């Protein structure tokens, strides 16, 4: 025998009443914080010593929000009697977070592991111009970058 169906008019009241009795799912943000999920896209951090000013990040950025400048410097040769080396030095690395859409293409495209996602999200500003962050500020965010996930079984670390 089929169970008699409760009219929607009444079961609706039941749903709202049950929901009222359950604790709310709200997180009272400034007073209590949730941990962001793993691999959260909070902010892009820059590891400056890895950067070779190859400009791939700036060129791949859909929003053109990365400003990157550098110059070449001569360094002494590695071996005695060798040729002088040419090194690229990073002068400016700014990300305009007012433009950034957090697509992560720059992080993906960086061949030298200089850009990382940091879960830090508390960097709002009262003025939109202040959202342009320079390489010093981007470097500070490196501290909050989580350790990389353990490698899959069978994978080998590159020497």
């Amino acid at each position, binding site marked *: 025998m089929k169970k008699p169906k409760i009219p929607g008019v009444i079961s609706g*009241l039941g749903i709202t009443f049950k929901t009222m009795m359950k604790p*709310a799912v709200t997180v009272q943000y400034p007073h209590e914080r949730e941990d962001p999920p793993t691999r959260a896209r909070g902010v892009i951090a820059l590891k400056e010593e890895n950067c070779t000013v190859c400009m791939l990040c700036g060129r791949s950025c859909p929003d053109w929000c990365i400003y990157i400048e550098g110059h070449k410097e001569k360094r002494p040769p590695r071996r005695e009697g060798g040729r002088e080396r040419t090194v690229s030095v990073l002068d400016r690395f700014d990300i305009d977070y007012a433009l950034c859409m957090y697509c992560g293409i720059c992080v993906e495209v960086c061949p030298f592991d200089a850009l990382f996602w940091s879960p830090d999200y508390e960097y709002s500003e009262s003025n939109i111009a202040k959202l342009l962050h320079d390489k010093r500020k981007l470097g500070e965010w490196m501290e909050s970058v989580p350790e990389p996930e353990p490698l899959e079984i069978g994978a080998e670390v590159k020497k």
Partner: protein
Amino acid sequence: MTAFHGPLTLALEIGWGTTLAIKTVMILMIVPLTALVLGYVFLLKMMSHMQSRLGPMDPGGFHGWFQLVGDGIKFIQKEDIIPGQADRRVFAAAPAVVVISTFLIFLVIPAGPDIIVKDLNVGVFYALAVSSLSVIGVLMAGWASANKFSLLGALRAAAQLIAYELPLLLAVVGVVIQAGTMSLQGIVGFQSTGSIFGWSGIGFPFIFTQFIGFALFLIAAQAELTQTPFDMPVAESELVAGYMVEYTGFRFLFFFIGEFGTAFAFSAIAATLFLGGWALPASWGIPLGVMRFLGPGVLFAKIMAVSFLMFWVRFTYPRLREDQLQALAWKFLIPIALFNILMTGVFKVAF
């Protein structure tokens, strides 16, 4: 005063002028205060929890109790805009008319053996008559705004308010027949001293015999308050509040206070007519001197219970269509109400 409560035994003698002043201040305070209480407890907190959220938590420190007061202060600060083509005097008077109709209902609602402004012997009739004054205020607001949309909104509201006036009145007739009086104190006394088949343990609240009337009264009151299943006249999100569209600042606040004050007033009428009002069952033997202090609390608890039902429905149901609204009133509520009156009359004669 009916014979039920016995002589007045106030400790201090006060003149009629002082009494009048105290009563006036009480009534003037009660509408904004109750509007605040209902707005906070139900609109802000209960609705939030029914939607699995918390509502305001910060203002005032404890669970955002100050939120509505702050909103009121904000409304008072705002510029009072009157449209250039508006009929200024009517425009200014309309919110007052709406609120005054709410004030007037409270005149006849008893909160204790002698806590009542005036115990009219046509109390029920009077309360429901003045509650329909707000239709005039709504029409004034819509007409004086010099805005075709607010006029349409006002007409929509008036059609609804007038349609639901009838079931509201007819739902109450059964109680009046049973109690044999229209005085609210008389009805309270009847319920307190009555007995169910000789058992007087809980008196005789009319909700047992007049449950249909109670349900009809709540449905019709919901429509009178333009609350959610029947909220086409206000419909903030899509019709930008109908007849109130040109109102800003404290005039808008008046409509808001009127809405929630009337919700409280209707709950008070329902609590008095169907749940026994301020009185506890007479068989419990609580002396009237104690009830003088206990009565308002008992009434308030009953009002909150009725309001909970009203707002529960408000936060659950989606809106009806305009034709469904009218069909519900004329084809469903009014026939049932008439049938209820008929059956009540038959039983009254039979027993």
